[in-house]
Structures are given as structure tokens and as C-alpha cells.
């Protein structure tokens, strides 16, 4: 047993850090600080730089131009980017591209993979609809066959990234005659296709998401991933790639460390916050919880590298990370006292308002990406083999 990274892995981390130190400019940092999770021009530019230097393919097989690195190495890479809030294309790289490799036609692979690898192409997920959230199989967006095309009409919501992505990965009903989850197919096509309207949805957590209206959008049959009516399978494959990245610990650890540093610096009534035994006690509780999450992340990545699918681990990661995010933000603000409520940019704001940002975003972490209730169902049923109700 060994919980350490290898010297090579540690070297990789140093390489990434050095690369980021060199190339993340003060201007980019400033843009990130105010971008509310929407990559700005400098972030888009940096994405292409990541592509140029081959970093985007860190986890891709070499046959697709990737570095073919292990999941642990990918984890190191994404952690380092997360620590600086660098946009790297998210699930375009980590999930959808991998799904394309597995399920797409040769032509689709040729069309999309090289451009994704260069950081030129980003894809958003078009799953959720007003009436289909947790219960995706109830979606009603229709894709009707018309000779060599499909004509798609419907509405998607919470389509995060639709305003800066170039493509959409859309789940639609291709055969209403089949049972709910059997008549669905996945399509990939450009967001500037005629008939698509993207409207912003702003959220409490500052992050922008979107509604996407599809009005007789005509896409070639070749836009379909896999066979007709295999959409639920395609989504499941994508999710297996995605899930391991859903509950991450790097930013939580950073926020916690920043909180501790802040408690060491700020004082109250003649002593630093960190000297307050009650503050210490709370911080200890948070520290233990974050370490549990870190270990679970290690376990998941390690299992992937051994060819196993960390189903329960990934769901548990998502649950722990999202609930801990909320707890850290809420308890952290209490520890900091009245100034804990101040946002980035305000006088007296501690930690550049980062806990406030996390607090406002935390509800979405809990219900998004499959609610924590569904994740617990997954752990119990798929992980522990308990019977469905």
C-alpha cells in the first residue's frame, strides 16, 4: 500500500505548475476572478494554448493524439487547473470526447476529436427539459427523420455552457412508439444551426446557464451518435466518464486552507480567530471531512487506472463534495464573523469573497449532475446491491 504519488507524478505536478506560472497572466487571473464561470476571451485563448501544448489530451489514448496518461495523472492535472480556476473545457474533454472515441463513427471522430484537442470546439449537454430533470426518460424534444436528416423541435433548460460552446450534445426522442427510455437518441451539432435560440438563465449562484429552444432544427442523420434509439446507452457511457469528475476536492481543500490562513491573520478581542478553541474545533471537523473526500477521489482514480468502474465511489464523491462545499461555506462564514458575508470586491471582504461564492453555488452542487438523493440510490443499489423499491 502506498498513498503517495510517484516521483514522476510529482514531477508532472511541478511541470504543470511551472507551465501555469509562466502562462497564466495577471490579466487572465483578473478575467477569471470576475467571469462568474463563463470563460472570457483570455480564457478561450488559454484553452487553445492548452490544446497547442498537448495538455487537453492528457487523458486521451495516444491513437487519438492524446498523452494516454493515467487517471491519477489526469487528476493531478485537473486539480492544478482547478486550484487556479482555469477553464479547460470541462466535460467536452473528460467525458464527451471519450464517448465519441467509444461510440462515434470514424467520420465523427475525424470531424470532432482533432478540433476538441486543439481547444477550438466545446460541447454543452442538452439533456434536461422543463418536465424532465431527475427523470430524464420523460423528455419530449422530438427528432423526426426526414430523408437524410433529422428535424429537431423542443426545449432544453439548464443548458450550462450553451452561450460559449460551439456544439450541443443533445438527447431527443426519435421513436415515441417505444418505451420511454428506449426511443431516445443522441445528436451532436453546431449551436449556430438555423432554428436554435439560446437564452440566458441567470442563477442565484451567479453562474449563467441557458434555455435552448429548437425550432425545426435540421441536422444530418450523420449527427447521430451510435445507432438510432440508443441514446440512453450513449448518455450512460458519457456519465460513466463524467461521474468521476463530479465530486472534486482541490478547490475545497484550497478554500479550507485559505480559511485557516485567514483565521491566523484576522483577530477578534485580542487574539487571532485561530486561537479560539471553538474555531479550532470547527476547523478540525471540516479538515477531517475534506481528507475523507480526498481519499475517496484517490480511490476512484486508482480504480479507473486498474480498469474498474468506481460506481459507488464516484457517487459518494459527488455527495460528499457538494455537502461539504455547503458546510464549509456556511461554517466558514460563521467563523469569520460579520465580515464573512462580504463579497469579492467589498471593503473588508475576507478570502476575496470566495466563501460567499461557494455558499451561493453550493445548492446547485447538491441537486445538479444527478441529485444527491439519486446518487445515494446509486450507491445503495448499484454499489451495495440493495433491491430497487
Amino acid at each position: 500500500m502506498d498513498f503517495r504519488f510517484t516521483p514522476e507524478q510529482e514531477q508532472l505536478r511541478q511541470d504543470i505548475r511551472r507551465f501555469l506560472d509562466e502562462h497564466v497572466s495577471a490579466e487572465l487571473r483578473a478575467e477569471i476572478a470576475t467571469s462568474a464561470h463563463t470563460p472570457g476571451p483570455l480564457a478561450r485563448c488559454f484553452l487553445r494554448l492548452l490544446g497547442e501544448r498537448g495538455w487537453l489530451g492528457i487523458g486521451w489514448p495516444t491513437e487519438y493524439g492524446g498523452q494516454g496518461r493515467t487517471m491519477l495523472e489526469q487528476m493531478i492535472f485537473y486539480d492544478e487547473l482547478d486550484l487556479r480556476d482555469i477553464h479547460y473545457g470541462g466535460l467536452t474533454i473528460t467525458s464527451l470526447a471519450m464517448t465519441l472515441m467509444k461510440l462515434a463513427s470514424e467520420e465523427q471522430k475525424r470531424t470532432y476529436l482533432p478540433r476538441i484537442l486543439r481547444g477550438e470546439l466545446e460541447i454543452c449537454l442538452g439533456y434536461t427539459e422543463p418536465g424532465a430533470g431527475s427523470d430524464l426518460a420523460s423528455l419530449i424534444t422530438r427528432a423526426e427523420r426526414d430523408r437524410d436528416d433529422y428535424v429537431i423541435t423542443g426545449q432544453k433548460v439548464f443548458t450550462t455552457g450553451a452561450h460559449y460552446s460551439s456544439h450541443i450534445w443533445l438527447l431527443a426522442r426519435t421513436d415515441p412508439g417505444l418505451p420511454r427510455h428506449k426511443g431516445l437518441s443522441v445528436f451532436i451539432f453546431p449551436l449556430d444551426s438555423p432554428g436554435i435560440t439560446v437564452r440566458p438563465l441567470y442563477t442565484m449562484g451567479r453562474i449563467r446557464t441557458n434555455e435552448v429552444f429548437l425550432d425545426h432544427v435540421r441536422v444530418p442523420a450523420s449527427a447521430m451518435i451510435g445507432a438510432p434509439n440508443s441514446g440512453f446507452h450513449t448518455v450512460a457511457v458519457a456519465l460513466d466518464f463524467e461521474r468521476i469528475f463530479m465530486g472534486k476536492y482541490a478547490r475545497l481543500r484550497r478554500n479550507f486552507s485559505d480559511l485557516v490562513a485567514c483565521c491566523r491573520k484576522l483577530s477578534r478581542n485580542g487574539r487571532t480567530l485561530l486561537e479560539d478553541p471553538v474555531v479550532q474545533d470547527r476547523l478540525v471537523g471540516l479538515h477531517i471531512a475534506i481528507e475523507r473526500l480526498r481519499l475517496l477521489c484517490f480511490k476512484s482514480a486508482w480504480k479507473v487506472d486498474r480498469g474498474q468502474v468506481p460506481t459507488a465511489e464516484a457517487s459518494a464523491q459527488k455527495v460528499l463534495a457538494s455537502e461539504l462545499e455547503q458546510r464549509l461555506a456556511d461554517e466558514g462564514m460563521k467563523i469569520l464573523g460579520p465580515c464573512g458575508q462580504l463579497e469579492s470586491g467589498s471593503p473588508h471582504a475576507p478570502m476575496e469573497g470566495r466563501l460567499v461564492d461557494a455558499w451561493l453555488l453550493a445548492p446547485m452542487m447538491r441537486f445538479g449532475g444527478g441529485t444527491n438523493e439519486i446518487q445515494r440510490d446509486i450507491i445503495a443499489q448499484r454499489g451495495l446491491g440493495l433491491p430497487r423499491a
Partner: protein
Amino acid sequence: MDLEFNEEQAQAAEAARRFLARECPATLVRRVREGRPAHPDALWAGMGAQGWLALPFAEKYGGFDADWVTLGAVIEELGRACDPTPFIDCVVSCGGLIQDAGSEAQKQRWLPALGRGELLVSLAMLEVATDPDPEQVATRLEAAGSSYRLSGRKLFVERAAGAHLLLVTAREAASGELRLVLVPAQEPGVELVRLQSFAHPHLFEVRLDDVAIDAGQILGEGADAMPHLRRALQCTAALLAAAAAGGSQRVLEMTLAHARERQQFGRPIGSFQAVQHMLADVWTDVETARLAAYEAITELHLGRAADEKVAIARCASSETFVRSCFTAHQIFGGVGFMWEADLHLWTRKAKEIELACGGTVLWRRQLATLL
């Protein structure tokens, strides 16, 4: 024992709910949060016309001498409606201090105007960014001939920019005692700096640089004002608890409605055991938080040493309000997370109340001393 309102209180609550449903829709709450305008003039005037702004004051100052439970009932409704007004800060805290600590002349001068809604006063109390303790006062009031000079810095002053007067806590240099000083917000030497809070949209830092004060601006006859301040904070805490109870009830109702209506997997999501158990816990929290709030309020009403019940009410109700919002978001999912959805107005309000007037942390500490 009687755990419900008497007829008069019930009528006040009912009237308040009707009034607020009409005059304080979520659209207004949202606009005021966004500063368009920062103060809801029409609503405030309406509350004045309803007599609410004079509820706690004696009749001879144009007030209604309302009992505490009636006041609590109105404030519970304000919490339900997520009201965007400075009611508690201005009427309960500042008005209470003027009535409690002011000289006859000061009461005559300020309370009727306050009760009519013509005078906005904000409490300027806290000084340390990390410290909710109102007794940490470094602001100095220094005698200068027959008048005084005031210097210091105050933080987390609600709506200072719209206030006519700031009620400033200061130490008199000579005696080291606490004084309550009414300072016009536009006075030379007063500088306002906006603080950005996710919870309270209109917070300010107030810098006081050698501000000229005459004796008439100092509440009362020059006795130590600390007991008055403590009493005012106690009343404020009890009534903040009522507001939190009202807010959390409303959030529970919204969540229940959603859980009943929203269908997934061919049935209402409220039929899932996980959802039911979350809501059962919220209901229990809300029910007990409301009882705790009114127990504290009735203790005040009876003039009893209410610190323990107030502390419990303050802590229980704020915890409940925040937690009920967390659960609401979980059950609403994306629909409740949208900026355009109203839920986050209550979520922010929950934190606004938790942090108001020194925050619940203060009262947890208070409770520790009472063990």
C-alpha cells in the same frame, strides 16, 4: 398556557398578511435588493398608514403601545413576505432605544416622526469586521467646550445611505461609559462606504471624522447607555426570531407546493421517502422555531429576564430558516436556483436575519454564559 394569538393579535397578523400580499410582492423585494429603489417608499408609507411604524411607542409619542406579541405577529408576516424594509432596525432597535434611553424632549422630537414613517434611523454599532460583540466600542465622544466631537468607524450599518439619522454607539472619553448619539447621516465628517454583502444588500461602513455633536444629540441625561443597548438588542433578537420563523414557514409552504406538483418518474416528487423525510424534518424545525420565538416574545412582554429564551429563539429560528432554504433548493432543483425564481430572495434573507444586529453567534455565546 395558550399557544395561539388572542383575537386582536390574530387580526393584526391577518391584516398584515393581506396588506403584504398586496403591497409587498416578490417583485418589490427583488427590486429593492437590486437597489431600484434602495428604500421602498410606498410600502414604508403604507406601513406607516397602517400604524405599524408606531406600534411599540407610547401613545403620547403618537404610538399604539402595542403588546409584544402583536408586534411579533406583524414581524412574522414581514418575514413571510421577505420584506425589504428597515422595520426591525429602524423601529424596533433605534425607536426602542430612543423611547428607552431618550430624554422627554428627544422622544417628543423623534418618535412621532419615526412612527409616521418620516424619519429613518440606522443603528451604527459594530466596529470590528470579525466581531459581532456590540460592547467592543472604540468610537470616541470627546467633550469640546459645551459640545462634543465624535470620531470612529462603524461597520455593517444597514441602509446608512438612505437614513436620516445614524444612532451611533460611542465611548465618552472622560467616563469611558457608553453613549448613544444621533448623527445626521449627511453631517460633515460623516463618510459612507458601501459594503457588498450577499445577504443584506444595503450595508455601509460609516467613518466619523471629528463630527461636531451637541448635547441634545446624545440620548438621555448622560448615564451609561449600556443597559439600554442590551435591552434593545434583546428585543431586536426576539423579534428577528419571529421574522425568521415567518420566513421559514413560507419557504416550507413553497417547497411543499412544489413537491406535490412536480412530477418525475410518473409521480409527484413529494411521494419519495427521501423527500418526505427532508420535509418532515423541516416541518419539525419550523414548528419549534416559531414556538421558541413566541416564547421569547411573551417573556419580554411579561418583563421577565428573557435572555435565555431570547437566545434560544434567535439561534433556533435562524438555523431553521437557513436549513429550510437549503432543503428547499434541494427539492426545487434548477427551477428554484434561477435568478428569476423567488426562492433565493428568502435564502438571502435567511442569512440577512442570521447576521443582523450582531448575528446569532452573539447569542450562542450569551447562552453559554447562562448555562
